[in-house]
């Protein structure tokens, strides 16, 4: 009875034993894995574009007061993105980010609607830049406007 137990134990030990081949296979497999990872990691990191730091403060001359009549709007370059200059029917000048908060389209001023409109998915904003109808989830970012003489100066920060 004892010898049968011994045999079973031996057999189980033999099955669980790490053979020289399986050990070498393990070493080879892990080194191949390490090589693959050490190649893939830099490649994947390289593929991810770095963030280009943009200054939080920005001041831009957006145009001249005489070029923008009441109840009209125009796009101007603000840093690396587009911004929208709006002159309300009452004559007040405001500036907003022209990037629709829905899916990144560029919005425009609609004089017939007296509001800001995004053509991509029919999003509407009022003259305060608030999202009033359609899919946009958030209001447009508003920038500070100063008029120096005839020049409209828009700034952020």
């Amino acid at each position, binding site marked *: 009875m004892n010898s049968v137990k011994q045999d079973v134990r031996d057999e189980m030990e033999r*099955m669980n034993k790490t053979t020289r081949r*399986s050990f070498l296979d393990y070493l080879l497999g892990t080194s191949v894995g390490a090589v693959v990872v050490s190649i893939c990691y*830099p*490649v994947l*990191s*390289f*593929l*991810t574009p*770095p963030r280009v730091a943009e200054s939080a403060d920005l001041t831009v001359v957006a145009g001249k007061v005489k070029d923008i009549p009441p109840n009209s709007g125009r796009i101007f370059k603000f840093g690396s993105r587009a911004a929208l200059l709006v002159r309300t029917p009452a004559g007040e000048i405001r500036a907003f980010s022209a990037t629709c908060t829905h899916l990144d389209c560029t919005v425009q001023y609609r004089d017939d609607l007296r509001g800001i409109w995004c053509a991509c998915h029919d999003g509407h904003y009022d003259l305060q830049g608030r999202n009033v109808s359609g899919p946009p989830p958030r209001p447009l970012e508003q920038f500070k406007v100063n008029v120096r003489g005839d020049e409209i100066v828009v700034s952020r920060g």
Partner: protein
Amino acid sequence: MKTTTDFKERASGRPTEAQSGAAEWLRNRLGTSPLEEIAAEKTVPRHRHSLWYYFGGMTLFLFSIQVVTGILLLLYYRPSAEEAFESVQFIMTDVSFGWLVRSLHSWSANLMIAVLFVHMFSVFFLKAYRRPRELTWVTGVLLLFISLGFGFSGYLLPWNKLAFFATRVGTEIPRVFPFFGDFMMRFLRGGDEVTGATLTRFFGFHVAILPALTTLILGVHLWLVQCHGMSRPPGPGYENGKTMKFWPNFLLRDIMGWLFALGLLAALAAIFPWELGEKADPFASAPAGIRPEWFFLFSFETLKLLPAHLWFMEGETLGVLAFAVGAAFWLLVPFLDKRAARGLPSRAFTAIGLLVLIYIIVMTAIGFLA
């Protein structure tokens, strides 16, 4: 019990159940059996100079690194005079591992040319170009010319001072050829001067035209290597009949070499990142110590040493024409070496090869020390 069965099957050389399932599935769909048969039958001769057989595969490996790193660099590089330098600077400083990818591309390019020269001279001295492998040699020499073209066009792309003037000198050289010299210079420069137009043009050569030519000629080269197998050198000592199976014996040794090359490249790129230099200024004078890449140094040095006038023509013209004749001779070696074609020893060609090799080494050394 599964482990033991697997092990026994593996030890007996039979595929395991899991292996045969996946392999069989793929085989039935891809029809790879002919490839497997070729791989199983392919052998490599074994003799005291077998080592040289590895350099062709090594060149191919380094070329594949060029392809991969080149494609990565394309994602950020901008080919215009206004942006090229800045975009490379951006790659080197801002992009994650950008310095590594660019340094690998530059180092691997240089190592590839070096290994290519070793491969070519070993083929030359072992007379592997003889019948029936004449076209393998011709396509190989064409690939050498293309690689030099890659080196020349790629050198300009960072748009730095050194490269700018090296390109002015390099594109001036074809002008010495009568009749079509002027046309060639204008064709290379995209105008009369080296400008942003040259940069854009060189970029086109570097990433579209030369890669397309390489694909074509490399395809023929590799196909011919498959058709004719590796050449056993003529003469006593090589006819021992010993061979090595290509798969897995030779290929695994190949892969060991590639792994070593990869390690060496990574170390070189990390310890000696490739420099960027100063941005090119077309209205500044050439800086001191201007010189081309090392593989053009021997010809650069030759042109420097030639006197202004030799016989009835300018020294420079004579030098360039001599190099052109030399290149044509090199391309046609298999057709000129009649003795090797008949399997006889051809000492004359061995001597010519040695002279060429010594000339290149000496002139390159002078160029480095000057």
